[in-house]
């Protein structure tokens, strides 16, 4: 079995982003996606602090303290970028204008519920940021995550145990082991890591899986 690395998960998801798409990349693993978009595709990145047409990180020494992304990292602007205020940035998110939101996930349910903002650990204060707005509003929500937690517990479940970010919003899950669609008929495995069979994948998953007739090996 050859599970994907984090960069490979990002690269696999990047392949599915169409030319000309408006995309918001969540904090963490999803931010790697921008490095792997196939050449020739023009992808327009949105940042909820008021950028459309965000470019890559600036070279060292060229950082502008007034030009940061939602993760508070220094960024640049692509030609064609636009700057706007927060309220307008969230009009784009909530109003269904962002075509693809690629988000990290703590848990995803078989009906597409997403939990990615809180473990309900009361020893430290909660924080939500723009996660709920994006999850409630973007046209397509794709989750990128490890297939299981560090202790081996499944992260794809019949029902999330962590507090929800939004119910019934995830349409596709990219993990280190599989690409899975959330459909009206349940979870459908589109791709599996080479060497893995459905039984083994099912063993690492907390909700019933079905293998697509045209499933393929998961490669980058």
């Amino acid at each position: 079995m050859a599970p994907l690395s984090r960069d490979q998960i990002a690269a696999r998801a990047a392949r599915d982003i169409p030319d000309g798409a408006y995309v918001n990349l969540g904090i963490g693993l999803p931010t790697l996606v921008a490095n792997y978009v196939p050449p020739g595709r023009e992808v327009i990145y949105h940042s909820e602090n008021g950028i459309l047409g965000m470019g890559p990180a600036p070279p060292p020494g060229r950082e502008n303290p007034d030009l940061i992304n939602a993760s508070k990292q220094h960024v640049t602007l692509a030609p064609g970028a636009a700057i706007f205020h927060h309220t307008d940035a969230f009009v784009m998110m909530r109003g269904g204008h962002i075509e693809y939101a690629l988000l990290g996930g703590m848990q995803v349910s078989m009906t597409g519920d997403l939990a990615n903002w809180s473990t309900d650990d009361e020893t430290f204060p909660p924080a939500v940021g723009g996660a709920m707005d994006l999850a409630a509003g973007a046209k397509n929500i794709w989750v990128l995550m490890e297939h299981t937690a560090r202790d081996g517990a499944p992260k794809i479940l019949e029902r999330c145990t962590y507090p929800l970010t939004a119910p019934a919003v995830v349409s596709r899950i990219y993990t280190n082991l599989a690409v899975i669609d959330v459909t009206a008929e349940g979870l459908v495995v589109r791709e599996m890591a080479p060497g893995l069979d459905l039984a083994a994948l099912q063993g690492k998953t907390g909700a019933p899986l079905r293998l697509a007739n045209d499933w393929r090996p998961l490669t980058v």
Partner: protein
Amino acid sequence: MLDKRVSSLADAVAGIHDGATILIGGFGNAGVPVELIHALIDHGARNLTVVANNAGVGRSDLARLMAMGRVRKIVCSYPRSKGSVVFEELYAARRIELELVPQGTLSERMRAAAAGLGGFYTPTAAGTKLAEGKEIRHLNGRDYVFEAPLKGDVALIMAERADRWGNLTYRLTARNFAPTMAAAADTTIVQAREIVELGAIDPEAVVTPGIFVDRLIHVPNPAPAGV
């Protein structure tokens, strides 16, 4: 490559279906997308709902579309204008439906659609006959009227300058409803006086970010509206 330019006015309005709700920019004669309205006339879609601040003047442009019997309903704050005649005729003959909406509510309802909101409470029209039949809620010591979002299938707007991603700027008060309408329609169609290279518009000066624009047609010398 993301390129929203189309090569003809016919392509710009292609696919507009009968029964569609069309948001049309403009206030007075400023910002009226005259060539797109002409293209819609030529296109032939009928049974339309038109959302616009005014209901046309004279017998050209929007008035002509209405005179052809193509507009079932108009959603509008001020259907009477200096020189409007067609709307009055159709209204008197009960051949057009009017939904009269206060101007700020009209704009805010489109913004709510753009912003993915389910509706809002406004003090405007509370205690007046335009609130009759609507939900009233008493909040913070005052009556508010519930208003629902107003979404377009299509928006037709005029811009001053555009790039191939659809970033737009406007000219003075020709801006009016355009930024809100652009964001409130499934398909936003723009006629622009000038199309510039990507990157030629200062990112801080963009008024309508391209995400709200679907099709772009270059109309360098638009005909004046209202004539």
